[in-house]
């Protein structure tokens, strides 16, 4: 045994059964299967095709429904029908395909049909590129189709977190009878990372609204049309009350190194990972930087961000876009501190060095002047809103350091078979700068 001595093989024995290497698209698909997905409908598009392919192989094996539709329009409307009939349904696509699904998303929001939709985002607008992007933030959180509605949007930053968020997406969809989105990007779809084979199957709640045939009960109608404005307004008020309830109960986010942070990067998904590396480099050069990572993009963690903004010098929003989430950040911050932005578009990904540079720019802008008195009180945050069920992870505290809200706040390097210290030099002790 060279290099790593006895420990590596022991860890190996322990790790082998728990973690497997999975491609993001495939891990999301398998997580959906394990979450009890009854039916999947899709249409090929890069960079999510492996999700469709995984379902094509696995769903029939399990006696469940897989159908490649004639278009994204077909896929999402098949999902609408299957969900209306009480099935747990997954649909996936990438940006241009999601645009085609916008109509049905609006219908399903109005009809209150629970479907989980995965968007593995790619560069736009138009046919754009097939490289990763976060250019669909507006589309996801501000509505896809027409009308007054929101849908929960979950944004994983790693494949293992995506695996955790898939069952949560089904839960939210069914608990609130709403379409729910999982917003990933080309990197998360195409990359492979270790995934713990520890999936979760949400409980089935009785669907006393689902269409099963009007046998022994009055007929049920699932619809969004209401030509009487009074009636439609009433329906809208009910929907809005539901959206407020979701906003109150389902906010999720994660923080890293916020305790002493003067500057904080706000980023989600892949951008948050770039930020993490940038923070490491920035801290090495003396900048005190932390990370605030929304996991739910809607509902957006605006109160938490507002509290944070009252005690830091400035925020830097990093996105794979021209600046979309930054608008929600500015709305939440309400001018309490400067908000800078760095983004790349069209399939380009910001590099950690670019982000460090942007941090330096922000530092120069906010200077050394003392932090003015917070516009809102309480730098010590009141208890954060928690998810509805205790089986779920509580919202992350400020000082949490994990990627996922399901990870411990301070992961210990030796925990769970992960993280032996990495060899910092080559076998001959001369790699990595020894020249």
């Amino acid at each position, binding site marked *: *045994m060279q290099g790593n001595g006895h420990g590596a093989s022991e860890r190996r024995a322990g790790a082998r059964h728990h973690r497997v290497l999975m491609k993001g698209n495939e891990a999301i698909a398998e997580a959906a299967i394990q979450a009890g997905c009854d039916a999947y409908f899709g249409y090929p598009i890069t960079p999510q095709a492996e999700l469709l392919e995984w379902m094509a192989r696995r769903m029939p094996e399990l006696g469940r429904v897989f159908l490649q539709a004639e278009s994204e329009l077909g896929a999402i409307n098949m999902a609408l029908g299957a969900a209306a009939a009480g099935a747990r349904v997954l649909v996936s696509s990438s940006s241009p395909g999601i645009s085609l699904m916008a109509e049905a998303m609006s219908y399903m929001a109005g009809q209150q049909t629970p479907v989980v939709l995965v968007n593995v985002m790619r560069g736009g607008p138009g046919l754009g590129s097939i490289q990763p992007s976060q250019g669909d933030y507006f589309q996801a959180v501000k509505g896809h189709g027409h009308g007054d509605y929101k849908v929960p949007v979950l944004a994983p930053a790693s494949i293992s977190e995506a695996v955790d968020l898939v069952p949560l997406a089904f839960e939210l969809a069914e608990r609130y009878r709403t379409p729910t989105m999982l917003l990933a990007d080309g990197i998360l779809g195409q*990359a492979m*990372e270790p995934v713990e084979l520890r999936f979760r199957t949400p409980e089935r709640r009785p669907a006393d609204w689902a269409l099963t045939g009007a046998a022994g009960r009055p007929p049920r109608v699932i619809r969004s049309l209401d030509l009487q404005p009074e009636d439609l307004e009433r329906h809208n008020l009910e929907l809005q009350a539901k959206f407020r309830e979701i906003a109150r109960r389902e906010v999720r986010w994660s923080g890293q190194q916020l305790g002493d942070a003067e500057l904080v990067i706000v980023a989600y998904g892949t951008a948050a990972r770039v930020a993490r590396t940038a923070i490491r480099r920035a801290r090495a050069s003396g900048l005190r930087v932390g990370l605030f990572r929304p996991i739910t993009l809607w509902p957006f963690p605006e109160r938490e961000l507002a509290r944070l903004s009252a005690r830091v010098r400035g925020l830097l929003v990093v996105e794979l876009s021209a600046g979309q989430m930054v608008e929600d950040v500015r709305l939440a911050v309400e001018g309490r501190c400067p908000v800078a932005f760095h983004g790349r578009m069209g399939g380009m990904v910001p590099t950690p060095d670019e982000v460090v540079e942007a941090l330096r720019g922000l530092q120069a802008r906010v200077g050394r002047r003392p932090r003015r008195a917070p516009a809102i009180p309480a730098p010590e945050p009141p208890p954060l809103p928690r998810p509805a069920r205790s089986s779920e992870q509580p919202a992350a505290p400020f000082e949490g350091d994990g990627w996922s809200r399901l990870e411990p706040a301070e992961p210990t390097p030796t925990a769970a078979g992960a*993280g032996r210290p*990495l060899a910092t030099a080559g076998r*001959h002790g001369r790699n990595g700068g020894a020249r």
Partner: protein
Amino acid sequence: MERSVVFAGFGGQGLLFAGQVLARAGLEDGLEVFWIPSYGPEMRGGTASCTVIVGDEPIGSPVVDRADAVVAMNLPSLEKWGPRVAPGGLLIVNASLVDETARRLDVDELRLACTELAAEAGDDKLVTVVALGALVGRTGWVDDEAVRIALRDIVGRKRPAALAADLAAFELGLAAGAREPVPA
């Protein structure tokens, strides 16, 4: 601590495969790993690459702006990735196809006749497995036994007849990586 390597070359040189073996070995070793291919039409020919990051904590940026190591299996890859090796990093060049050098004094450039070594192992197509061996031999980022386990797992399951040559190619690369003197 994170370490990143880019495998780059022609489609068909087994770049994605070598990256997967490294990632799988890192997993065997209980490390955090991240593997991402260049994806899209190019995967069906032309240039291809994949990036592997191994680390002892959750992997941060999936985009490597400075690679700790680059495996350049053809000239375009050397031209593209040579300048992006981090100072002090490792550059493995497939000398069977590439005569040029990176012309960098601040990296450890290891030139390997991958085709010849692969042929010696029994299959001259296993060029990137040779390079993977050299990478592991040179850096020790993952345990070499973990790589053997990964090869047995991945190759042994899908095409067991090829396993012996893969293991042999890896051993030749491993030895070469450990043996070649590191320039001062």
